[in-house]
């Protein structure tokens, strides 16, 4: 395949990955890695490197927009970034030692989990209970709901911190934002309102990915010829996605279609990993 054809296919593929990732909230990384490895037969380390860089672009882009609205909790984000960056560093080092078959299978498993969690019904819950540690760390806050500021508390910080460590490892190991795991930590464990959890997760993804990207860059996993079309495509796709979202509320059927596609890709990754074809 010529360089120009490879670049064009990747540009379009990455555009749709970014578009779907932003419409469903799963992120572009989860589609771009199967596209690179299964379709274009690119080495999985190159794929992870390129996806990781594109994740930084999309998360920083949307974080810039969210942060202005005042929903993102910068303190919660900063505090938990200690866990995610430490995890991401560990993950990037692990990626060097773990066999690629294992990475491919793990990727598939996380992909299925992400697809399922994107289908889950979202409940907006607010707790007013502040634990001792949350008070000390000033983690609670207020966020706008239909023009009114609603206050919320934060609980089970140790549990959330531990989950974030895991989310960081997965992000560094697989080159994805692992937004789904971050939301589980905040919304599920720490009882932070869903809207605050998702925007704060997005805010954290860039810093988390940067912590492992510095390792990947030095190891030669970020190839400019692959990363270029991936970053450009995913970013423009994500921008289009966010424009569509403003006009139409995210539709249920799209979520389902995407979940099915992602599950199919996940099974392919697991199969190829298990049979050593990756």
């Amino acid at each position, binding site marked *: 395949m010529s360089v120009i054809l490879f670049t064009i296919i990747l540009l379009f593929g990455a555009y749709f990955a970014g578009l779907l990732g932003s419409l469903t909230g799963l992120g572009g990384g989860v589609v771009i890695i199967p596209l690179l490895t299964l379709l274009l037969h690119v080495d999985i380390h190159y794929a992870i490197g390129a996806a990781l860089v594109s994740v*930084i672009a999309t998360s*920083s*882009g949307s974080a810039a927009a969210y942060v202005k609205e005042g929903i993102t909790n910068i303190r919660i984000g900063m505090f938990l970034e*200690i866990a995610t*960056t430490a995890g991401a*560093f560990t993950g990037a080092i692990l990626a060097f030692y773990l066999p690629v078959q294992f990475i491919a299978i793990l990727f598939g498993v996380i992909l299925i989990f992400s697809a399922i969690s994107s289908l889950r019904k979202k409940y907006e819950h607010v707790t007013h209970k502040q634990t001792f540690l949350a008070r000390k760390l000033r983690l609670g806050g207020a966020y706008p709901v239909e023009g009114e500021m609603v206050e919320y508390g934060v609980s089970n910080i140790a549990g959330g911190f531990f989950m974030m460590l895991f989310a960081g490892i997965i992000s560094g190991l697989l080159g994805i934002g692992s937004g789904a795991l971050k939301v589980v930590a905040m919304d599920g464990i720490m009882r932070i309102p869903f809207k605050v959890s998702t925007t704060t997760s997005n805010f954290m993804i860039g*810093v988390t990915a*940067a912590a492992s990207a510095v390792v990947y860059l030095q190891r030669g996993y970020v190839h*400019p*010829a692959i990363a270029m079309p991936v970053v450009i495509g995913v970013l423009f796709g994500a921008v289009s996605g966010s424009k569509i979202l403003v006009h139409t509320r995210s539709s249920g059927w799209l979520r389902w279609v995407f979940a099915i596609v992602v599950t199919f890709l996940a099974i392919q990754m697991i199969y190829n990993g298990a049979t050593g074809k990756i």
Partner: protein
Amino acid sequence: MEQQEKFKPEMVSEEPANVHSFHDTDLQKMIGWILRIGIYTSIGIVIIGGIFFLYRHAQETANYHAFNGVPVFVHNFGDIFSSAFSFKGQAIIQLGIILLVATPVVRVIFAAIGFLLEKDYLYTVISAIVLMVILLSAFSGHAG
């Protein structure tokens, strides 16, 4: 007295810049700005590098099936910089990517400064820890 005056809306606009203290909303605005500038410049550089790269190498064969690292001239920062200035497309792309990776790191640095201005010392320290983890990652990444 001063506190009471601040709450009068007509006084706020006339308030001189040096009296105005640093708040969370300022921090949010600043972080939004840094992220936006970082993305626009880095993607711009990647696109320019991509044009140079495709102009020279469009008809070559793309084969990334086996892992071979990256081309020699993008191995370290010094080489990337000098190669970018001799218009090597891949070096320009890599320069843009490094800037992109640096964007969230710069965000952490500015958050630390912002918290310091807010006199929130706890979060200045927390931001510094995050920064240290990233730097540790950057400096030990090659050795591991």
